[in-house]
């Protein structure tokens, strides 16, 4: 079964992205939302662990509305992370078998 993992907290403040990445499997997607979108930017202290997970086949997405609210433009997002809107979030939830929210 494939899981949609949502991470809503900044990886610079909380360890939830770290724990998420330690259990995510290669048929799953990690969606960054709310303050979690900060982790999607290029050249941060979180970038290398995301790159490593991508190398293992994990897919990544980030919620565009939350990026925009924080003044972070989509062209700053790491290669390989797709930008989705709320409808895309709904579609991701439908396309995976279950949803794990890393609150």
């Amino acid at each position, binding site marked *: 079964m494939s899981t949609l993992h949502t991470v809503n907290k900044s990886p610079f403040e909380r360890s939830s992205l770290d724990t998420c990445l330690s259990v995510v499997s290669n048929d799953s997607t990690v969606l960054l939302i709310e303050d979690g979108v900060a982790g999607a930017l290029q050249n941060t202290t979180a970038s290398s662990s995301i790159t490593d997970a991508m190398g293992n086949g994990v897919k990544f997405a980030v919620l565009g509305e939350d990026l925009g609210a924080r003044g972070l433009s989509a062209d700053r997002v790491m290669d390989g992370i797709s930008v989705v809107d709320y409808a895309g979030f709904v579609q991701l*939830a439908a396309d995976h078998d279950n949803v794990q929210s890393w609150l």
Partner: protein
Amino acid sequence: MKFAIQINEGPFTHQAADTAYQFTKAALENGHEIFRVFFYHDGVNNGTMYGVPPIDDRNVSAIWSELAEKYDLDLVVCVAAAQRRGIMDEDESKRHGKGAANIAPKFRISGLGQLIEAGIEADRLLVFGD
């Protein structure tokens, strides 16, 4: 597809209730069904009708009430969590001898079984919180 939504945080302080609202709205607009929205922990505070936010900001309780009116949503506030935090309907308010009900339109108070039932009946349960 049939979604169930759980909201763990109150209005304004955390974005959780806003994100859940946007998700729910997008799901409905894309032809999905929302089996139930369950408000737990501080999430019960979304069910107050006493909030008067600044007029240039959104009113989180009110937009939930409106969405529920439009799509006939089932908005359930957990009774145990609500009692701790002071959210009351007519019945609860009389039973505990408080001044008045403060629950917002289209919200109803019920038990935790409603959350489990939502988990059983929906295809996906999504939790929004801190």
